[in-house]
């Protein structure tokens, strides 16, 4: 349960809310309305759940839990892409699903997340989401870890944040069983959302690792200037700021930080496939402008949603602004430097997991 009753209406949350910069939304008043009068406000749906306000709240109100509880069982105002990803999750929750691959006894499991359906429906953003998986597996192989690739159902992140806990629970039940049967003791994800979900919203009893925690041992010497966008799920939700940066700098990469980074990072603008609108577009533009200002040739992130949203802005038919830099997933960026397996020097040390 959220501790929303301890809110004393100071309004700090609203002032810091990124959505407030682009719309008349107010975390404060949504707490007030709900807490005092039991009213619903549409603000509970405009919230990006970026996690910025609870960080600043003097009363340590758990605004994210509040939003999730408020949304529970209600109909979202809008879901982008006509809700196709929600429908897919709903559908897959009703189907039988795969069983764990018994051909390998690797104790490490890698879960690709929803890259396939992103490739299927977001072909116009010109991003090869599948490459995130191939890159991640290649990197893990290079590090001497031969993971099982887990063909589970969707982790349920989006539906959980869209107030559809029943679907989430179905997905979770299947995935938990799958993981149990797979016999792994470590679950690696490259997706920030999966990472958060498996860490905080599942109770797996095994180690959940984000791939960026492993990549500083690659031993690559990459001469490149990049900037790094902290996905809210990896950063503020999980507090992981240093691992992805170390994964870059340890491999020779120079990071040029944006005006807002780490705890203060701006949101990509669109979380869990809700709210694709003028406001969220403004946030995307604001973030991409910051990235451009660093002068880096590449913007790196570790969330496929951030990747999709930035690249969507980049590939617009008649772009509002041109952004002359690549937006690339961390694993993809590093794996592209590996070259052919065996040909290049490889990191020898096996990291502890």
């Amino acid at each position: 349960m959220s501790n929303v009753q301890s809110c004393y209406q100071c309004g700090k949350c609203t002032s810091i809310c990124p959505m407030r910069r682009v719309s008349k939304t107010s975390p404060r008043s949504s707490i007030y309305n709900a807490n005092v009068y039991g009213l619903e406000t549409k603000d509970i749906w405009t919230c990006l759940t970026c996690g910025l306000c609870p960080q600043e709240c003097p009363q340590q109100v758990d605004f994210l839990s509040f939003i999730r509880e408020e949304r529970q069982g209600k109909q979202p105002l809008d879901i982008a892409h006509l809700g196709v990803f929600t429908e897919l999750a709903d559908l897959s929750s009703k189907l039988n699903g795969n069983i764990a691959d018994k051909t390998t006894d690797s104790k490490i499991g890698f879960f690709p997340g929803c890259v396939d359906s992103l490739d299927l429906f977001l072909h116009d953003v010109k991003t090869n989401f599948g490459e995130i998986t191939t890159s991640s597996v290649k990197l893990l192989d290079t590090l001497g870890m031969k993971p099982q690739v887990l063909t589970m159902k969707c982790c349920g992140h989006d539906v959980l944040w869209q107030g559809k806990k029943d679907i989430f629970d179905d997905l979770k039940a299947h995935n938990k069983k799958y993981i149990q049967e797979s016999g792994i003791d470590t679950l690696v994800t490259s997706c920030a959302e999966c990472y958060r979900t498996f860490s905080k919203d599942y109770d797996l009893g095994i180690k959940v690792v984000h791939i960026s925690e492993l990549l500083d041992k690659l031993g690559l010497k990459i001469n490149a200037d990049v900037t790094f966008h902290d996905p809210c799920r990896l950063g503020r939700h999980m507090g992981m700021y240093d691992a992805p940066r170390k994964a870059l700098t340890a491999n020779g990469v120079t990071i040029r930080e944006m005006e807002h980074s780490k705890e203060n990072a701006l949101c990509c603008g669109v979380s869990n496939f809700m709210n694709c609108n003028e406001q969220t577009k403004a946030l995307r533009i604001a973030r991409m402008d910051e990235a451009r200002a660093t002068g880096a040739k590449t913007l790196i992130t570790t969330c496929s949603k951030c990747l999709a949203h930035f690249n969507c802005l980049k590939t617009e038919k008649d772009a509002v602004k041109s952004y002359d830099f690549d937006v690339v997933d961390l694993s993809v960026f590093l794996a592209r430097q590996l070259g052919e397996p065996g040909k290049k020097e490889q990191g020898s040390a096996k990291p502890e997991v």
Partner: protein
Amino acid sequence: MKGSVAVVGGGIAGIQAALDLADSGFKTYLIESRPSIGGVMSQLDKTFPTNDCAMCILSPKLVETARHPNIELLGYSDVKSITGKAGDFTVKVTKKARYVDETKCTGCGTCTEKCPSKVPDEYNAGMAKRKSIYIPFAQAIPRVATIDSAHCLYLTKGKCGVCKKVCGPKAVDYEQKDKDIELNVGSVVLATGFKPFDPTSLKHYRFDHPDVITSLQFERLMSASGPTQGHVTKQSDGKVPKNIAFIQCVGSRNPRIDRNHCSSVCCMYATKESIIAKEHDPELNITIFHIDIRAYGKNFEEFYNRAQREYGIKYINSRPPEVVVDANNALSLKYEDFNTGDLKSQNFDMVVLSIGLDPADSTRSIAQSSGIALDDFGNIATSIENPVESSVAGIYVCGVAQGPKDIPDTVAQASAAASKAAALLSGERGTLIKEREFPEEKKLSIEPRIGVFVCHCGINIGSVVNVPDVVEYAKTLPGVTHAQEMLYACSSDSQVTIKDAITKNDLNRVVVASCTPRTHEPLFQNTCKEAGLNPYLFELANIREHCSWVHMKDKEKATQKAKGIVSMAVAKSALFQPLYKQKVSLINRAIVLGGGVAGMTSALDIANNGYSVTIIEREKELGGMLREMTELYDGKKPADVLKEIMGKVAENKNIKVINEAKLLKVEGYLGNFKGVVLANGKEMPIDFGAAVVATGARNLEPSGLFNYGKDPGVVTQAQFEKMLGKSLSANVITMIQCVGARNSEREYCGRTCCVDAVKNAIRIKKANSSASVYVLYRDMRAYGVMEKLYGNARDLGVIFIKYEAENPPKVEGKSVLVHDSMLNEDIEIASDLVVLSTPLIAGENEEINQLFKIPLDKNKFFLEAHPKLRPVDFATDGVFLCGSAQAPKLIDEAISQASAAASRACTILSRKFIETEGAVSVVNEAKCIGCGTCVTVCPYNAPSLYDVTVKVEEVTYTTKKSKINAASCKGCGSCAAACPAGAITAQHFSSKEIGEAMDAFQKGVKGISIDKGVVEVMV
């Protein structure tokens, strides 16, 4: 002058001609001798080279023809004679007795089911049986039964009479007689098509053996609607064949039996049939025995290559003289292996005879009775410059009636013939057509009051679905105020019943549960309009194709499903709002890009149809590539041809020519384009309603090939053509075909090069019979009636030597070395002159493709809207295509296409206004984020972006918003599905409407199970 045209023949040629004429404002009679229109195309399984399903692309055209208010269909009718003169013809027609009243028959098929008499089915090329009272195929138009009087038991023996007894609408009439009628028309288009060659006379091919079949029979065997539901089986024992042989040129390229022509299509259809058969059964071995493989059309060579590379189809250049049947009744073929000289024999389970195209009997009979000249082959005679004009002014011809050709060339000629007829009668345009009038729409009450009409369709639905049960169920659905059953919802008395019910119950939504909206929606929409309801308040629930026809064996579940379908339609219809078509004015003026023979012809046709047209030509003078030529293959001088056509262009007051000009900019849409032309260094605006792209092509310069450019004794065929205009001193001339074509770099066939080589070889021999001419070729592609030209060249002593692609000729100084693949020996030809036949390549098409956003193919030629049925259209409305800009072609073909493009343009220019679709997509600007996804996905160029400044609290940015031009939008909904922000609504198919329908269905779902890839929904 009469504002009406008779089109004779209801195959794809006649259908296209009739549709173009009707769309251009002429009353059109379409006369077909068979019970249904559709011609041979309706019998085909797939079409080359895209393997599109033939019926799937033809059937919408059939329906459109049936529905068109300006087309009067005279099915099962023969033309006896045509008399009179241009502008005023009398066409005598015999309407053969169907013994069924067309106005009463609903096509329910009850009579067919009960008829006891079975006879061979022509539609299935004799391989199945049909009844004596029959509808030839499922998509037949008109969909009425016909009694085969030669076999009907009642008509032949006076017994039976079952059909009359079971006919619900009382349509059977044994007393019906043939009826002679006279049509008074301004012009006639002959589209009498062809007759498939009957191989019975070629006894050594053993067509009497059940496993020797014609290519048309094979086509039926592969078709899902054929006698074996698409399973290729042997006729002798029903087993699946392992080895199949095709024998090409059966009834073609055979002067011995007076078939001097190549049938133009057999190489490709054999290739197509082989590919499809292999797709059905990858274990099959297929061998095609041929003379030349004539893959000359757009994408044909690529198709032929794929057949070999991807499907492993074997092509053997050798023709077996006979089909050998052994004592066990097994088949084998004997043939000479050209590589080794050995005589080989191979066993086959099935032999397919690739039969040629013979002129139709009606072509000859109508020509004879009406004094129309035929050519040497029995086709309607025409000339290169006037490829669709018969010897009688005002009578035009198109399709195979003019000479063997494939479907796209046929469709182009059909539009061309329409263009000529329309030009002749342009003064009478619109005089004989009528528009329907409807009462004013009544005011829509707020609450939905839905009427549901459930159709028995005779026994089609009623024998499977419990219709009364569905009616009772419908009455329980929310918003339904009236529900009833109907025997035939589409019959004319039912329309009265529906109208009465609308009035009596004050209905404001109508749902008919019957068959497919494809054929029947317009009928019921009109019924609604007649009762004062907006047509978009109507919904069809398809409980026949989607239910009773596919669940015949489970009546209980079928009834359940029918209820589900009805509940979905009802739920959806409750949300319907009236939609209106907008009328947009248009500019009745066209532009033609390019002033070659295609561009000039197109401009002349448009001008003769009564519309202003501007030719925009890049060069100083009109004429294009024809200027470079010195003789046509019929001996005419291109200069004379050009002079005549340029004279006509100069004289015509409707035509304006801008030389040394180019189109810089274009915006707008169908009927309302605004462009900018640059000429003489000045930019000037030009407004137009339609555009024809006729920018031609250019000759390939074969730099670096065969010493070209280094040795003055090596020239291109185009340069040689010019040399032939003067006197020629060379005595030994060697031509090399396929230079820079049919290779990995340029896969396509140049199409015109073989004919050009043959033509010029003949010219050399005629001027100097002692000259030696060698033509080194891979396949001689002298298709259609050009075969005769090829024969002439051989008769005159031109020597043709075949070489293989892997072993091309070499030019060394004055000698040409070639490995003769027929002889399997190296030959050296000491030559005075080497002539390289190079293909036409695309011109600077990239600029124009950007201007109009029209696509290019991989060879940079323009890509037409559909390779089969829309050869001169673009997907973008209002822009048309002709000549070599589309792909290389001969002059007469370019001229046909040019007239066709004009005809298509005139279907727009002749309108008083452009009527938009009613159910178009609309953008909610507040939700639009201007990402441009809609612009990318729209096939019709309807959405566009415009600038807006968005101010959201602290952040201000300039972005785009989308707007959809209703005049270009077809309501396909692609944009609505793709819009990430959900800002676009496809009206009449909105997410809400579809969602309500799905929810209605879901309410009844008790469970979903998946077993071995089969999803079963329990209701």
